[in-house]
């Protein structure tokens, strides 16, 4: 049985025991389960596994934190840090915003209202402010799949519009990506605010979806939290649907209700105005109070200013002052002569009505007041001046004794306590004393007067009496009274006239009677009257008579010092006569003249054509030896001198007469225009200040003469022309006749007329052609007839014509022939320096060209295609040859000769040969060979290349050959 069992289930039994062993041994079991655990967990239903594991994991985490918080912190650190940072940032923003709002509303009316509300409801003031002041509306909310940017859900506020939300959500995530990529931003949260004017886009990023709110206005920072809460809720509720979103949002319809809560958030604008009411109330209180304070302060200031002004016033003593209830009280003493305190108020802006003053009068003993009082009581005369000197009052000047007495009394009174009054400097001037003084002064003045002798004088009862002698020439005693303060009415005088013999009176009388010339001076020297100087003998005689008269008792009159000057005077008279004679001479101007020591000096201007001043001396009795003259020549503008000069300078022809007519110079007659031009120039010069020069009566006789001159000029020009020989020329009745020889190459005589001013219509010319042997003309002719190549140059060297350069032999031969001909005419043409042009290169090419032939098929005029390379080569050779030939000064021409074979009729053969040549010409032309270089002929059968028999024909003869010709 056992054996049977072993046989039947032995293997299972051992297997079972192995499994049982496995289950019993914990280590083995753990190893087995460990093998399958990862794949078992992977296959388990998500929800169940999560639920099963959650408590264990929670406990594990709890233990881990208890054991070492550090480990878990390190793990979560990258996750926490950005979240914490963002949260703190928002909190700070929130604080700032509420602070701003609070500050803004502290002083407004509404602010007060809100404070009340905060106090009443027990909430913080900033909360109340935010609640009222933020004006915003959430217009749209988008829920966007984070992976694909596809729209999951979208809700809109009432009346808000937008474009296709699907496109917008994609674009928003594109912009998120763009910013993240562009600025290398690693942060997972993405763009959380976009602001455009009034619009803000706030986005909150969740694990699978992003929520974007479009907000118009000014949202509070708290709104972030609200939005975040909504997003969290959506993720909680529909996490799986969000994760698996593949563009089909039918699973997520519930989300919209959540979004709707966001859209409902709004804060309507309330009427926000300026706090007028509060401001008005405050103003109502503040303005009057401020004004009152200011005004009372200001009036106090003014009162103080007035008081200090009073204090500085002399004669005013302030005893007491005070201010009470806006009224001012003042008491004190004042001198009647001091300034009026009331009048001092004006200008201080203190209201006089509010000033209550109480002034007692007193007499101030300050010197200035005393002085005033003295001046008032003493009334000092004008001659007395009162002043204050070191606190003393001093009187100075003159006063009658009466006043001095009163002053002295006043001084005595003052001595009782006032300042000293000093009158010691006042002189007593009683009227009598004064009048006597003045009279005495007058008398003593009279006594010092020459020519006045006071005999007697006295004063009696205020009247003055005086007698004496006075010379008529002396001062008038009466006039001397003025200024003496002596009253003329009280003066009684009695004056006798007499002739004073005092020298000065005698001098006066002599001066009056003798009238001495300027050259005599009279003076008093030690009581004698002395005459000095020069005088003519007549005056000296009269002076001697006077001296005799005076000798009877008067002072001596000494005339011994007067020199008799009559001879000089006479000579001077003559000189003056001579000078005035010079003055009347035309063409002489006396500038200066003088006499000194018997010599005569004269300077001035004289025209060379005027009379000679020296010659005029004769007959004047002036001694020429004593005359020193200095004459400058000048051109006189007097008409007669001008006439003389014009005659000398213009040399008028005999046919012209010059004359003076009423200060004008007039020319009459006939003259050529050249003379008239010169005369006109002279007239112009004279117009600057000289007499008029009238040439209007001179007739111009030049045209004929000028025409003749021009003709002569033309003829001499012709004669100078090479290749023109003038044989004969005459002028007859205004017409010109000329005959001669001219070379055809010489200048055209007719053309030479232009510019000569000769009238071509009046020229009659007869020219025979001839060949000039002038080398220049010979060269021209040779150039025309020989047409030398470019490589040859003709030049004239010392009348010989020399040809230099390279030329083809043919041309050299022609040049030699020409040289021979010319030598017979005596002209040398030197061709010895010509060198023959080397054509070896060209010859080689020419042979190559001439060896070429173009072949044709029987009866054809167009060569076969196999001839194309031959034509190409030939064209190149022809062009090269033509070019090289041109360089050497020769023209190459190519003859294309067409040929035919001997088959057929001859006429046909001739025309076919010509046609072949034409064809080749056209083909060469097409290849760039100039057509004018190509000549064509048809030779028919006449120039066969090989002999042939007419029946078979020969392909060798059906050709076009080329010959080269050089011109």
């Amino acid at each position, binding site marked *: 049985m056992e054996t049977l069992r072993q046989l039947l289930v032995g293997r299972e039994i051992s297997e079972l025991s192995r499994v049982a062993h496995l289950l019993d041994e914990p280590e083995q079991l753990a190893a087995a389960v460990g093998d399958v655990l990862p794949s078992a967990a992977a296959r388990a239903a998500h929800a169940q596994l999560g639920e099963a594991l959650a408590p264990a994991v929670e406990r594990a985490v709890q233990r881990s934190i208890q054991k070492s918080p550090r480990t878990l912190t390190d793990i979560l650190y990258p996750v926490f840090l950005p979240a914490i940072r963002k949260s703190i940032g928002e909190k700070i923003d929130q604080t700032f915003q509420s602070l701003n709002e609070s500050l803004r509303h502290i002083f407004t009316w509404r602010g007060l209202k809100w404070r009340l509300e905060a106090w009443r409801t027990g909430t913080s003031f900033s909360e109340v402010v935010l609640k009222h002041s933020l004006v915003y509306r959430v217009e749209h909310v988008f829920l966007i*799949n984070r*992976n*694909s*940017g*596809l*729209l999951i859900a979208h809700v809109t506020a009432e009346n808000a519009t937008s*474009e*296709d939300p*699907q*496109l*917008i959500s*994609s*674009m928003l995530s*594109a*912009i998120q*990506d*763009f910013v*993240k*990529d562009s600025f290398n931003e690693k942060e997972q949260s993405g763009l959380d605010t976009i602001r455009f004017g009034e619009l803000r886009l706030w986005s909150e990023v969740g694990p699978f979806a992003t929520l974007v709110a479009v907000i118009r206005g000014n949202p509070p920072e708290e709104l972030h939290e609200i939005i975040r809460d909504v997003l969290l809720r959506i993720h909680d509720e529909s996490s799986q649907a969000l994760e698996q979103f*593949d*563009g*089909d*949002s039918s699973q997520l319809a519930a989300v919209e209700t959540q979004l709707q809560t966001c859209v409902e958030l709004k804060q309507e604008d309330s009427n926000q105005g300026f706090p007028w009411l509060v401001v008005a109330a405050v103003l109502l209180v503040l303005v009057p109070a401020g004004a009152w304070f200011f005004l009372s302060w200001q009036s106090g200031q003014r009162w103080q200013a007035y008081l200090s002004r009073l204090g500085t016033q002399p004669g005013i003593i302030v005893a007491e002052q005070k201010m009470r209830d806006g009224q001012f009280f003042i008491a004190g003493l004042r001198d009647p002569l001091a300034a009026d305190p009331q009048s001092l108020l004006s200008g201080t802006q203190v209201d006089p009505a509010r000033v209550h003053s109480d002034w007692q009068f007193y007499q101030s003993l300050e010197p200035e007041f005393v002085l005033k009082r003295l001046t008032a009581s003493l009334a000092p005369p004008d001659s007395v001046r009162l002043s204050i000197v070191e606190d003393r009052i001093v009187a100075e000047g003159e006063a009658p004794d009466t006043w001095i007495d009163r002053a002295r009394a006043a001084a005595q009174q003052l001595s009782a306590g006032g300042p000293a009054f000093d009158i010691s400097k006042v002189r007593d001037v009683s009227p009598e004393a004064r009048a006597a003084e003045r009279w005495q002064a007058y008398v003593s003045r009279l006594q010092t007067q020459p020519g006045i002798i006071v005999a007697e004088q006295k004063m009696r009862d205020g009247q003055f009496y005086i007698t004496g002698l006075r010379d008529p020439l002396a001062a008038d005693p009466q006039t001397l009274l003025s200024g003496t303060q002596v009253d003329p009415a009280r003066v009684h005088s009695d004056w006798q006239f007499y002739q004073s013999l005092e020298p000065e009176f005698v001098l006066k009388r002599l001066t009056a009677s003798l009238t001495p010339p300027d050259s005599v001076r009279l003076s008093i020297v030690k009581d004698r009257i002395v005459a000095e100087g020069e005088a003519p003998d007549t005056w000296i005689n009269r002076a001697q008579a006077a001296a005799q008269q005076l000798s009877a008792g008067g002072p001596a009159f000494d005339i011994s010092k007067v020199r008799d000057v009559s001879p000089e005077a006479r000579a001077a008279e003559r000189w003056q006569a001579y000078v005035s004679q010079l003055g009347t001479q035309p063409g002489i101007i006396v500038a200066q003249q003088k006499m000194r020591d018997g010599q005569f000096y004269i300077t001035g201007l004289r025209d060379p054509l005027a009379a000679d001043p020296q010659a005029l001396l004769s007959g004047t009795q002036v001694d020429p030896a004593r005359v020193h003259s200095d004459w400058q020549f000048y051109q006189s503008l007097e008409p007669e001198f001008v006439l003389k000069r014009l005659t000398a300078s213009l040399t008028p022809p005999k046919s012209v007469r010059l004359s003076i007519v009423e200060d004008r110079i007039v020319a009459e007659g006939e003259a050529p225009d050249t003379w008239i031009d010169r005369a006109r120039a002279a007239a112009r010069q004279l117009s600057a200040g000289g007499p008029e020069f009238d040439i209007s009566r001179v007739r111009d006789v030049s045209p004929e003469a000028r025409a003749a001159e021009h003709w002569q000029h033309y003829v001499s020009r012709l004669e100078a022309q090479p290749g023109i020989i003038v044989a004969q020329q005459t002028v007859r009745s205004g017409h010109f006749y000329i005959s001669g020889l001219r070379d055809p190459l010489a200048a055209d005589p007719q053309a030479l007329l232009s510019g000569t001013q000769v009238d071509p219509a009046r020229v009659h010319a007869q020219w025979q052609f001839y060949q000039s042997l002038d080398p220049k003309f010979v060269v021209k002719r040779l150039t025309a007839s020989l047409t030398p190549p470019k490589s040859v140059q003709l030049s004239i060297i010392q009348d010989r014509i020399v040809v230099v350069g390279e030329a083809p032999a043919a041309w050299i031969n022609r040049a030699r022939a020409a040289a021979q001909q010319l030598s017979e005419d005596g002209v040398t043409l030197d061709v010895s320096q010509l060198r023959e042009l080397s054509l070896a290169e060209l010859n080689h090419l020419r042979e190559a060209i001439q060896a070429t032939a173009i072949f044709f098929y029987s009866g054809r005029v167009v060569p076969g295609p196999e001839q194309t390379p031959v034509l190409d080569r030939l064209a190149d050779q022809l062009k090269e040859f033509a070019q090289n030939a041109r360089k050497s000064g020769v023209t190459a021409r190519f003859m294309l000769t067409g040929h035919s074979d001997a088959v057929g009729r001859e006429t046909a053969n001739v025309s076919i040969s010509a046609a072949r040549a034409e064809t080749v010409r056209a083909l060469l032309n097409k290849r760039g060979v100039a057509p004018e270089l190509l000549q064509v002929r048809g030779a028919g059968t006449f120039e066969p290349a090989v002999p042939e028999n007419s029946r078979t024909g020969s392909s060798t003869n059906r050709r076009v050959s080329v010959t080269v010709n050089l011109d």
Partner: protein
Amino acid sequence: MQKKICMLGGFAVGKTSLVRRFVQSIFSEAYLTTVGVKIDKKSVALPDKTVDLILWDLAGEDDIGSFRVSYVRGAAGLVLVVDGTRAATLAVALTLRERAEAEFGAMPFVLLFNKSDLADQWAISDSEINELRQLGWQIYLTSALSGEYVDDAFRQLASMVTK
């Protein structure tokens, strides 16, 4: 049902003009040069449903290095556009697809050879196109001028991405 589709292709292959007549668009083409992407929508009616293709038209770049591959994230399919007159743009389109798939895994696509109206400048041989077709690729010769096959291509892609 919406699907994100990215349009990829080299510079000036005609992506933008290809779709201009067939799509709903609110953004200006300036977005292409500023943000580098322009988003259009094409609704395709399939027998059983309507699919909104949200087309991300990525700025064409011949410089593959500046391709913003992040824009392809979450895309359900690709439209590869080649300029049929410039053979090099085929290589550009294929490279862009490789970049996109390397980043986000294989996804369905259609390959459009554009500018089929310019027959005389055509630079892609038929044999080349046939070889690509034999790989099972959906290939269309399109013309922005005539609009030929553009709708067909979008319809094909829509059915591919909703399968």
